[in-house]
């Protein structure tokens, strides 16, 4: 800024409710009084209900579908299957490899085979039972290694390896003075958003278009895929964001969108659908279960010299975002540490398990668990404190990833570690409340509880990678003294609407900010994922507002004969060389202004065959410390406290940042100690909240935190995305704390290598790292 400030400048107060303040959500009032409309709350006069028939087999040949009895049931309006798909019977975020309805073969338990529209849900359910499908059961591919080694025939025309990526950097043959290795396992986690999938589709009067209200993460990408499946031009498919009850990656793919839209077109009536929890578990993608081998090479003092790794990600039956998840995993193998040499191999493969795709921290969650467990092993092997070995190797701005990419962002890794460790340890528990014991009342042997402490650190890429231009669009209108913002950014609960409101107030100096509906009536915003919306859509709102600011200042300069370049908006005033001349509200009172802007991040590139290239856009860093109480005999544990310091760039809304951190910690804690989708022979065993556990309020410890605010000059507002970073290194930190507790308890066991930790992993662990088998 080169603006000269005149000596008679008066201090102009900042606008209330602008950037940096803990502004409350504009949708919050409706959410606390029950009037906020979620996608499942919309009903339309004359609507039909829809329901989906799904495969009971992980792999089978589809021989015939007889819908005659279902169609004849009174109240049934339509029964559709693959033959009724007018466009391409395939969808997917990266490859269109997943059929709307199965043809010839089903590839996972839960794959849609047919769908029904009827007068009410009960009639739908009866009709579903009347559809007769004959299958020839085939042997499923359930072992990811078999997908790689070619010993199992192809289960999909696109083959069994979705993507293979190798990274080779520096001296491939280097052997460190110290080497440590291990194999790590991450279970399949579910996003478990509370608001189940729901949508309402309304056909156009001419029957050649459809309007869809749906809870999703990316309206325009949904539209692209839906239009292709329906055989319609994209402008004949219009989407509006229904109220979204959480997402976390699980709404980035198509679930019921095409089914309800097609049923609306076929029946000529509005069609509404809502998944049950059981259907939701099989109806959206999950976090990839992974097996990761790593070998770290270091000097005797702990200086990291080389990382070797092999990643195997089970992508399930269809590709979804597996290739992006794989790239995130392999390119983050070194963690937030300097490392010049690497040999990394990664596979994302197809099996007959449930399809996997995006979930908060995609790919990096898996990589971080492995590299942080390795850093703990390395610390032991080098005789260095686990905190100090991380500080010793901590990445700084300008250091390179194993892809050769230089980290250009602010990179306060050592500071994250130091500030995390400086946070206060938990207060002693008051009294003997049962919630203070692992497992709660009556489940813990007296006196055997041991406390442990562990820590871990992460690096997470922000925005999309590998040459993808995931731009965002926003329109700013100023009329009647108010700001009206329009964008297609999916508000999924993270609070983008709050940030957008704050941006507009600060940029324009007008307190009243309203929103147009979030729909496809404006350009794409990209996905609400990859921690990208504050940066990308925030950037678009900034640009749109600044376009309007320019117009306002032009008018004021012309009206008042002032030098345009001397004018600015400060607080709620237009200032001339820092001196207030007119309130913004007054300057705009008789006029209207409008500007639409697109925000693009700098270009990235694809990796070459040696895995080299500037494939990522930006990075954020976080450290976590966990304090855990463990009952070694019963294998029960309680997380007592989480401490974290996070590199947020700038906290645009401190209240929202705290919410993202606490919520992210809860999901990382869930992965560490309880959350896993169990499949046996390709069949999910726990598709309910009775059997798939997520943390309750009683499971969640206090989170103490430090926000590290070093504004990133590359970010439009200096702010980094804060959505994913909090859920990544908390998982290995908790596991390290359990290890520490077991060491203190005198247990001679190998480090824990899998999440979630099960009771038997603790109670039945042995020195060689194996777990005794339960039962026989």
């Amino acid at each position, binding site marked *: 800024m080169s603006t000269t400030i005149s000596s008679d400048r008066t201090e102009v107060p900042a606008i209330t409710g602008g950037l940096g303040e*803990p502004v*409350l*959500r504009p*949708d*919050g*009032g409706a*959410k*606390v*009084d*029950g*009037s*906020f*409309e*979620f996608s*499942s*709350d919309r*009903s339309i006069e004359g609507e039909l209900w829809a329901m989906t028939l799904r495969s009971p087999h992980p792999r089978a040949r589809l021989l015939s579908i007889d819908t005659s009895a279902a169609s004849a049931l009174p109240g049934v309006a339509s029964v559709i299957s693959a033959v009724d798909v007018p466009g391409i019977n395939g969808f997917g975020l990266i490859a269109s490899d997943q059929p709307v309805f199965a043809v010839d073969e089903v590839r996972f338990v839960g794959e849609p085979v047919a769908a029904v529209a009827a007068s009410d849900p*009960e009639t739908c359910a009866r009709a579903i039972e009347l559809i007769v499908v004959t299958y020839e059961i085939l042997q499923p591919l359930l072992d990811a290694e078999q997908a790689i080694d070619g010993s199992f025939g192809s289960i999909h025309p696109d083959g069994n390896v979705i993507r293979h990526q190798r990274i080779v950097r520096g001296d491939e043959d280097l052997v460190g003075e110290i080497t440590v290795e291990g194999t790590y396992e991450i279970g399949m986690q579910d*996003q*478990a*958003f*509370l*608001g*189940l999938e729901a949508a309402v589709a309304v056909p156009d009067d001419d029957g050649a278009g459809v309007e869809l209200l749906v809870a999703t993460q990316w309206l325009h990408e949904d539209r692209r895929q839906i239009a292709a499946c329906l055989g319609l031009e994209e402008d004949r498919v219009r989407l509006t964001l229904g*109220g*979204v*009850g*959480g*997402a*976390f990656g699980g709404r980035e793919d198509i679930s019921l969108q095409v089914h309800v839209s097609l049923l609306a077109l076929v029946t000529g009536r509005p069609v509404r659908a809502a998944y049950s*929890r059981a259907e939701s578990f099989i109806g959206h993608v999950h976090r990839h279960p992974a097996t990761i081998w790593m070998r770290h090479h270091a000097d005797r003092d702990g200086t990291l010299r080389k990382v070797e790794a092999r990643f195997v990600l089970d992508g399930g039956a269809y590709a979804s975002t597996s290739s992006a998840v794989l790239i995130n995993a392999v390119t983050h193998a070194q963690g937030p540490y300097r490392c010049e040499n690497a040999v990394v191999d990664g596979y994302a493969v197809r099996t007959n398990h449930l399809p996997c795709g995006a979930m908060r921290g995609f790919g990096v969650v898996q990589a971080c668990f492995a590299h942080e467990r390795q850093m703990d092993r390395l610390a032991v092997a080098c005789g260095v404190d686990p905190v100090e070995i991380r500080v010793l190797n901590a990445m700084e701005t300008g250091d390179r990833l194993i892809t050769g990419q230089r980290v250009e962002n602010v990179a306060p890794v050592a500071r994250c570690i130091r500030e995390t460790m400086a946070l206060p340890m938990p207060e002693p528990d008051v009294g003997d*409340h049962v*919630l*203070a014991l692992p497992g709660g009342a009556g489940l813990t042997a007296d006196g055997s509880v041991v406390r442990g402490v562990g820590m871990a650190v992460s690096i997470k890429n922000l925005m999309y990678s590998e040459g993808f231009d995931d731009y965002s669009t926003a329109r700013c209108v100023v009329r009647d003294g108010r700001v009206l913002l329009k964008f297609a950014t999916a508000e*999924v*609960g*993270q*609070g983008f609407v709050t940030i957008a409101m704050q941006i507009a107030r600060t940029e324009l100096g007008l307190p009243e900010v309203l929103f147009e509906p979030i729909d496809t009536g404006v350009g794409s915003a990209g996905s609400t994922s990859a921690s990208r919306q504050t940066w990308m859509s925030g950037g678009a709102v900034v640009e749109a507002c600044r376009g309007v600011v320019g117009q306002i200042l032009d008018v004021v300069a012309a009206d008042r004969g002032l030098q345009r370049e001397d004018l600015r908006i400060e607080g709620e005033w237009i200032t001339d060389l820092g001196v207030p001349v007119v309130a913004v509200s007054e300057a705009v009172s008789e006029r209207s202004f409008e500007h639409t802007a697109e925000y693009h991040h700098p270009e990235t590139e694809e990796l070459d065959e040696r895995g080299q290239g500037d494939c990522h856009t930006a990075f954020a860093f976080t450290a976590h410390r966990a304090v855990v109480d463990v009952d070694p005999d019963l294998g029960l544990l309680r997380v007592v406290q989480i401490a974290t310091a996070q590199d947020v760039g700038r906290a645009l809304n401190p*209240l*929202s940042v*705290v*919410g993202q*951190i*606490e*919520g*992210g*910690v*809860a*999901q990382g804690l869930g992965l560490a100690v309880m959350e896993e989708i169990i499949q046996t022979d390709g069949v999910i065993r726990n598709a*309910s*909240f*009775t059997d798939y556990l*997520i*943390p*309750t*309020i*009683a499971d*969640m410890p*206090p*989170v103490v935190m430090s926000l590290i605010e070093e504004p990133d000059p590359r970010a439009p507002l200096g702010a980094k995305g804060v959505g994913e970073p909090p859920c990544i290194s908390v998982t290995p930190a908790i596991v390290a704390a359990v290890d520490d507790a077991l060491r203190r308890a005198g247990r001679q066991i190998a480090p824990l290598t899998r999440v979630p930790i099960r009771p038997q992993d603790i109670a039945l662990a042995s020195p060689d790292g194996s777990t005794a088998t339960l039962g026989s």
Partner: protein
Amino acid sequence: MRRVESECSLTVNGVEHAVSGLHPGESLLDALRERCGLRGSKGACEEGECGSCTVLVDGQAVCSCLTLAASVSGCSIVTVEGVGSSGGADLQEAFLRAGAVQCGFCTPGLIVAADALLSRNPHPSLNEVREGLAGNLCRCTGYGRIVEAVLDTAEQRRSQR
């Protein structure tokens, strides 16, 4: 257990709703949402695990997904839509101020459950709040702000006495 009838009357937030054509076994949640037009109560698990559907029946917090609609005919039912006008407006405000709301899907059930908790225990300790709300799942917030909202409300009410 009362006999399940296809017609009944539900008194919700002080208003009587004549409900006809109930399916046998229809839950109170479905009746509230689809027949009374009160969609504030949410369904997220259909088996009493998540608490999103929590309502008060004669002052007691219950999962409306597990309650037969016909079995509460004649009872006083309070849903999230009625909490504000029956003394819980400060609690709703506290949720908003504390940042206890993100996606908001769990919020109606939590508001009702917290309202019931504060009715039976106006001065809960931290652990009593955690115990009292352990039946309500939230996937966004990690619960920290929710605890704060409930404790703040109790504190505010105490200071206003």
